[in-house]
């Protein structure tokens, strides 16, 4: 009698299987659903597949420093020989786990992040987590995660950015962060290692800026979805491999622009994407947008543009000024809606629309992301004043509502096309 060996799938295996399914679906869509694919994007497709479908760790043997938000300076982490891993999560599977632990109306991003920690199922498990006290939900999430046995350190973050007090406060927080990490790593932060890491990250950012320049072209050589993949890869990839992949990609972009390779139709409306961050694999809204014959030419989100836009600017290259410059970069230019006023964000969106010759703005807010929901009205008013069409969409991580969302987005895209035709 032959026996088939049956094993019962553990919850972790099940979680991994579900996450792999989510991931591969998105990767395949981006890979196959659009015309003129980019050769050198394969590095990124493979990277996401390796990490999220095959569960292969990238940083074995290194100290992994988990960060809960954009505000923890990678410059200092690299200088102290750590690897920053941003743990903002985009998986519906983890969102469901988190739903049992957090209020029903909490933000899916926070739920997914907490769910991920609760399951303690990491590909590259963080050795220590730094949690900046940005929005309410993230602030509280830090403590919840600590209760699961992770080493979590809060980094105090102010909610205003104009005042002198908040600038000083945040500079102190960053100094404290550097001290904590330096103690944890048992390594000294020096002028030379910090300067080197500022320039290393600056170089990576400069590549992003170069790539963004190509998105200003009339004939667009790259999809917004690809851009989200590239920027999201920066959450966890080895920085050297990432920059190398970018250098190769930039070469291909140059050729594509010269050859006038278009990833969309000639009349596809150009969109600036803003609001709650699309984090892999939650590309629900961007996917619908680009499948509806519109193109995302720029974005104002913390999972993408905001991570790269501002570079550290140092006046006196000594430790004291470098640390202050780093602090200022993460506070002053940040357009996160947790801050009291949002004029900077509005100016930024309008500037992106102008520079990238966009036709409209699409604003995503996660149901439960109170601050983005609250800012909606003022942004809409400002866009109306500036004569820029805008679509506000509330979304979450669930795979349902696809039909309703695509109907709305398609209708919006159609109306933009009509508007364009009328203009001519």
């Amino acid at each position, binding site marked *: 009698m032959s026996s088939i060996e049956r094993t019962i799938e553990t919850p972790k295996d099940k979680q991994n299987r579900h996450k792999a399914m989510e991931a591969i679906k998105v990767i395949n869509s981006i890979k196959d659903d659009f015309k003129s694919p980019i050769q050198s994007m394969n590095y990124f497709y493979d990277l996401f597949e390796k990490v999220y479908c095959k569960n292969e760790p990238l940083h074995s043997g*290194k100290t992994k420093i988990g960060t809960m938000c954009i505000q923890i300076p990678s410059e200092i982490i*690299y*200088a102290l*020989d750590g690897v920053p891993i941003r743990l903002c999560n985009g998986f519906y599977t983890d969102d469901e786990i988190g739903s049992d632990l957090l209020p029903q109306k909490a933000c899916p991003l926070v739920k997914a992040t907490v769910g991920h920690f609760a399951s303690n199922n990491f590909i590259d498990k963080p050795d220590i987590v730094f949690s900046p006290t940005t929005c309410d939900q993230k602030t509280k999430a830090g403590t919840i995660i600590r209760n699961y046995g992770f080493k979590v350190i809060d980094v105090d973050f102010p909610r205003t950015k*104009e005042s*002198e007090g908040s600038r000083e406060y945040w500079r102190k927080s960053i100094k404290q962060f550097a001290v904590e990490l330096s103690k944890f790593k048992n390594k000294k932060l020096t*002028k*030379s*290692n910090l300067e*080197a*890491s500022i*320039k*290393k990250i*600056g*170089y990576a*950012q*400069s590549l992003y*800026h170069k790539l963004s320049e190509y998105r200003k072209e009339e004939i667009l050589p790259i999809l917004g979805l690809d851009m989200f993949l590239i920027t999201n890869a920066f959450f966890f990839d080895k920085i050297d491999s990432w*920059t190398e992949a970018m250098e190769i990609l930039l070469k291909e972009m140059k050729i594509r622009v010269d050859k006038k390779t278009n990833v969309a139709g000639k009349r596809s409306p150009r969109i600036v994407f803003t609001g709650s961050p699309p984090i892999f694999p939650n590309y629900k809204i961007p996917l619908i947008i680009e499948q509806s014959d519109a193109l995302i030419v720029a974005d104002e989100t913390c999972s993408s543009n905001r991570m790269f*836009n*501002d*570079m*550290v*600017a*140092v*006046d*006196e290259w*000594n*430790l*004291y*000024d470098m640390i*202050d*410059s780093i602090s*200022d*970069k993460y506070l*002053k*230019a940040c*357009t996160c809606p947790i801050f009291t006023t949002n*004029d*900077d964000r509005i*100016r*930024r969106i*309008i*500037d992106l629309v*102008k*520079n990238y010759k966009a036709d409209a703005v699409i604003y995503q807010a996660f149901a439960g992301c109170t601050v983005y929901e609250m800012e909606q009205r003022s942004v809409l008013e400002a866009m109306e004043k500036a004569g820029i069409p805008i679509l506000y969409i509330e979304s979450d991580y669930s795979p349902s509502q696809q039909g309703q969302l695509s109907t709305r987005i398609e209708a919006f895209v159609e109306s933009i096309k009509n508007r364009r035709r009328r203009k001519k």
Partner: protein
Amino acid sequence: MSNLKRKINNMNLVRFRFWFQIVAFLLIVYGGYIGFDLGNKLPTFACVYNGDFTGGKCYLGMLQHDLKHPWETFLGFAGYAFLISLGIFIGWLWLLNKAWCGYVCPLGTMQDWITAFRTKLKIRFSQYDWSSRAKIKPIKWILLILLLIIPVMIANSVFGLPKLPNGLSMPFCDICPGRMLIPAFTGDFGQFYIDFSSKTDLVMTTLGMIIVGLFLIGSFIKKRFFCYFCPMAALQYTFSKPALLKLYKDGSKCTKCGDCYRACDMDILEIADDVTSKNLVTEDCTLCLKCVAACPEEGCLEANFAGKTIFESTKEGFIIRMAMDKKGELNEQH
């Protein structure tokens, strides 16, 4: 043309300014040796006490001298002479605007050298907190008013007050650190003295000595320490609006990242936070253009001469200046 423009926008401003200031310093302080003379109405501290060596003279000295006349003479020839002098001063000012401070002024240059020395020692600079910063702003205006009024009050009885003693005829020069420091560069240390001949002289020359000490210590601690109090800056600002050289800002491109503010030696907050004004030459601005060099936004800040952009902020320029255009290596082996 566009290539040249790109080169200028990508330039290393710090190095350019360093050499420009050295050349300007040599011409102003030693210019007399080669017969270089820009006259005595300069909107910068070219010191009259530097004797034959000076490549020009400061208008503040001339102004104090001009004002020490009885009322009546102003109605006649002296009045015309005064206006002509002022006109020449304004002419010089309109040429470079406040860049006289950031690029030419020998006292400014000396302070920048002291700053460079401090940086070499890896000692942190200090900053005023915002409220103190606001409080010291009027001091330069008070000094300006005093240096205008005192000479008048020597020659005239104002509101029936007794005339001031003649020892006060150059009140600002008495306390100006330039009087002592600039001639020292041509080997003349004779200005370091305390004059016991009269009470006024005693007080003024003692004040002068104290201020030189403060100048040297202050500028080691605070970048451009003296410029915060400079009455020349106040006088310049009075006439700076129509000047040819300008610092313009396009607020719609500003992200308020504050890079410009941090680079600013004069801690001018408006440069980062004002997104509505176009002309950003504020009363304390020295037009050093460090803010333009530190700005990462394409065309947000620019130096403009007579309506033409001569140097503007670009992403590329920023990246090159911060040495982020090349793949760096982390020192540590991974």
